[in-house]
C-alpha cells in the first residue's frame, strides 16, 4: 500500500518535470513547479506511515503513532514552496505588464 503512495509521488514529480521542460506558457511552468513540490511532499509524508498507526496526538488512540517528524518537515516545506511560487507569480505579473504575453519564446530574456 505504501508503494502506491511512493509511486504516485514519483509519477507526480516526473510529470511536473516534463511539464517544466516542454511547456511554453509561463503559468504552466509555475504549475509544473507546484506539481513537483506536491510530489516531493507526498513522498515525505508517506515515509512516516506505520500500518495500524494513529495520529500523533496525546493521549494516543491506539498503540503506535505514525512518525510525526515527516509531518513537521512537510509543514515547513509547504510554506517554503508556497513562498517560491508566490514570488514566481509576482514576477509573471510584472513580465506581463511589460510584454503583454506570457509565452516563453516571445519574451526575449528568457530564451536559452
Amino acid at each position, binding site marked *: 500500500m505504501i508503494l502506491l503512495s511512493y509511486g504516485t509521488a514519483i509519477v507526480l514529480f516526473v510529470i511536473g518535470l516534463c511539464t517544466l521542460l516542454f511547456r511554453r506558457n509561463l503559468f504552466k511552468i509555475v504549475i509544473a513547479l507546484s506539481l513537483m513540490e506536491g510530489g*516531493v511532499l507526498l513522498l515525505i509524508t508517506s515515509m512516516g506511515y506505520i500500518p495500524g498507526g494513529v495520529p500523533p496526538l496525546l493521549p494516543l488512540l491506539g498503540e503506535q503513532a505514525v512518525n510525526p517528524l515527516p509531518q513537521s518537515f512537510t509543514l515547513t516545506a509547504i510554506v517554503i514552496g508556497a513562498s*517560491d511560487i508566490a514570488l514566481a507569480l509576482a514576477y509573471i505579473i510584472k*513580465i506581463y505588464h511589460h510584454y503583454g504575453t506570457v509565452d516563453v519564446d516571445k519574451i526575449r530574456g528568457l530564451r536559452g
Partner: protein
Amino acid sequence: MNPVFAVLLPLCTAFLIPLGFIFFRRALPLLVFSGGFFSALGAGAVAFLGWGGISTVMGGWAPELGIALKVDSLSACFLLLTSLGFPLALLSSAEEFGWHSWRFYVIFFLSWASTNGILVAGDIFNLFVFFEIFSVAAYLLVSFPASSWQAVEASFKYLIFGTLGALFILLGISYIFMATGQLNMALLQDFFPALPGPTLGVIAGCLLGGLLVKCGSAPAHFWLPDAHSSARAPVSALLSGVLVKAPLYALLRLGTLFFLSPFPAFFRFFSFSALSPWGWGILWRCSRKRSNACWPIPRWPR
C-alpha cells in the same frame, strides 16, 4: 560564543528596519549601519572563537533531538568572508541606492542572516530552510530595482532554476531521512557507508545536482550570466563575491562529510569541468560585463 548570534544579529536588524522606517525615519541610516557593524562583529567573533570547533544544540536538547549548530575552520573561513563582503556591499549600495527604498535593506540583511545560517548549520533540514531564505533573498536582490525589465526577467529565470535545485535538494534530504531516520550531519556521517547502493546514488545525485544548479556551475549555468549582468553594481559584486559561495560551501560540506569515500572521482571530474571545452564555451557566450560574472572572484565593488 553561541553561533546563533551570527544569524540573529542580521535577522533582528532586518526585523527592526520596517519599525525604524515607520517610527524613526531620520534614524534609518544609523540603524542600518549600526546593524551592519554589529552583524559583522558578531560573525567575526563567531569565526575567531569557533576556529577550533564549537557545536551547540538549540534549546539544550540532545544532538539527535534538536537542531545542532556547528562551527569549524571551514565555516570560520567562509564566515570571515561574509563579514568582510557584506559590509562593503552595504556601504556601496547605500551610496548607490540611497534611503528611499528601505525594503532593499531588509532583504539585504535577510540574505546576510541566511548566508550565516547556511555556514553554521549542523542539521541538514535546517540547512535547507536557510538555503531557501538565502535563495529568495538572492532572487529579490537581482531584480532590484523593479523598473528594469531585464532584471526582472533574469531574476525569474534564476527563480525557476533555483526552485528546481531546491526541490532536488529536498528530495535528497527526504531520501536521507527515509534511509536513516536522522538529520544531524555529524550523526549521519556514521550512517552513510552502510546505505544500499541505489539509495546512496539517489541521495548523491539529488543533493549534489540540486546544489550544482544553485551554484550556477556547469551544466546548469544558464541563469548565471543574465543574473549578474542585469543586477546593479553593488548587488552584482555581492552575488559573485559572496552569494555564490554559500552553495559552494554546502557542496564542500556535504561532499566531504558524506560522499568523499564513495565518490572521489566525482570531485575530480567537476573540478576539471571548468577548464574543459564546456567552460570555455560558457566564456565565449559572455559579453564583457557578463564575463566578469562567468569567472566569479571577489572584487571591490565599484
